[in-house]
């Protein structure tokens, strides 16, 4: 191992970086080191990262080349080194689109995803779902369900997100996991709850009644996850747009309550939702606009852009509300961020009156 370190150092002194001017054929040949026993984790991991680097730079591999590398990589499952194993997963994901017969690693990955090592499990699930097709899904269904209710949040998130990807090809199967996902929405972990809500939202997209059932209890208490709350606001806004009867009043109140949130992300999400409804309640519009006004004066460029852009989109719908922000927008004309300045100028031109031209 120490000799390898020295070798790496020399390489660097010579060519600046170990990744400079890599040659595809040489790197692919280096994959023969994967056959050595015992496996040298550092060396092999470095070769894998070279292969990934080449692919990332846009280098093309032929099917044959990709398949050869893929099969060589499978030899590395002998090693227990965590970093190497994770690099193997990455390679599997990258090569699965290029190589043939990638399903041969199914059993290795299934073993890892049900094994003891938490660091393997989450990543193994994601790699496994990237090589699985609809015909093989049946075989791993039981493990996926288990993973969604696992106690490790990374494992749960990995399973939920993978299920979401799979739902585009096999919607029925994934719908059968709804109970497990429903439970995960109430997780204390912010990302688990976000991913669970996301998959439920996507499987119920065309079913309004069950969407209402899903959303109503969630609007009663505050979700801890910022991302989940953003998603909830989007779903609620769609419901209000579909149904402008009295029944949507509690939903409007929910979005209104989000205007008092301390997170800027939520504030913006709520203000944006309110102003883009087909029928914006008048009393809410002014409080939403005042949120955007505050954003226009922020020191962060992304906040100023978010504010200015939403106001710009409002010019035809709520011209008076935008005109009320003229002073804030005028301050943005000389903004160091050119996107912000352009938006401010175009918005002012669209709404401005003669009186403001002089200034």
């Amino acid at each position, binding site marked *: 191992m120490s000799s390898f370190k020295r070798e790496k150092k020399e390489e660097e002194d010579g060519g600046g970086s170990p990744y400079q001017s890599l040659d595809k054929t040489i790197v692919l040949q280096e994959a023969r080191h994967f056959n050595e026993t015992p496996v040298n984790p550092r060396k092999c991991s470095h070769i894998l990262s070279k292969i990934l680097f080449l692919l990332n730079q846009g280098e093309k591999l032929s099917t044959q080349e990709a398949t050869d590398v893929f099969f060589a990589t499978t030899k590395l499952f002998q090693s227990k080194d965590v970093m190497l194993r994770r690099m193997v997963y990455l390679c599997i994901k990258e090569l699965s689109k290029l190589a043939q017969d990638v399903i041969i690693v199914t059993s290795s990955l299934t073993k890892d995803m049900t094994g003891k090592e938490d660091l393997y499990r989450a990543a193994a699930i994601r790699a496994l779902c990237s090589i699985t097709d609809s015909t093989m899904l049946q075989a791993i269904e039981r493990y996926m369900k288990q993973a969604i209710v696992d106690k490790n949040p990374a494992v749960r998130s990995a399973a939920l997100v993978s299920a979401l990807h799979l739902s585009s090809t096999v919607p029925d199967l994934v719908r059968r996991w709804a109970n497990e996902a429903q439970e995960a929405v109430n997780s204390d972990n912010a990302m688990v709850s976000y991913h669970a809500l996301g998959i439920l939202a*996507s499987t119920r997209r065309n079913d309004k009644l069950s969407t209402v059932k899903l959303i109503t209890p969630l609007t009663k208490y505050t979700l801890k996850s910022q991302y989940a709350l953003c998603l909830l606001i989007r779903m609620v806004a769609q419901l209000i747009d579909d149904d402008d009867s009295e029944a949507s009043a509690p939903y409007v109140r929910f979005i209104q309550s989000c205007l008092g949130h301390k997170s800027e992300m939520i504030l913006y999400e709520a203000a944006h939702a309110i102003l883009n409804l087909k029928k914006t309640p008048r009393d809410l519009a002014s409080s939403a606009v005042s949120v955007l006004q505050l954003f226009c004066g922020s020191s962060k460029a*992304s906040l100023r852009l978010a504010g200015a*852009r939403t106001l710009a989109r409002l010019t035809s719908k709520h011209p008076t509300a935008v005109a009320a922000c003229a002073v804030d927008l005028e301050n943005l004309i000389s903004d160091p961020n050119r996107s912000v300045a352009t938006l401010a100028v175009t918005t002012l031109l669209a709404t401005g009156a003669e009186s403001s031209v002089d200034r």
Partner: protein
Amino acid sequence: MVYTTMEGALFEPTLYIVKGMCILDNDGNRVLAKYYDKDVLPTAKEQKAFEKNLFNKTHRANSEIIILDGLTCVYKSNVDLFFYVMGSSHENELILQSVLNALYESVSILLRRNVERRILMESLDAVMLAFDEICDRGVILDSDPTSIVGRAALRTEDVPLGEQTVVQALYNIMNTNY
């Protein structure tokens, strides 16, 4: 300027938020890049052209955010590296900003605060894993730098204890069975 003439629209309730993430060097060359939507910049050639354009527009003005070719790009730079996160122009800019922060912070912790190209290339494998932990095919997987690094910086045994971050040190202790 499509966006100024466009009618306002609600944000779409989807988890597929991130269109791409990349790190460029100070010549605008790609260090690492990932694109997640096959409808947006599908070929390597288009991606590199976009990256060049993006770099030319952003490398001098350090102004955090730009709208380019229908994509909202948030960015941040340090020494000779530029970090970008891309999303659709109908996306909550602050969510993209939170992903960028997660990316930058994780890489920064991984490189022990020496965010520069040479150091990054030495730990390229860990940075690749961090990319993978932050975003899965466009879905934000994790945005907490400490937990991302906890799962990406796995090879810490050869770092002297004094130079390890608290997270790494704790992580090693927890994973050693005495």
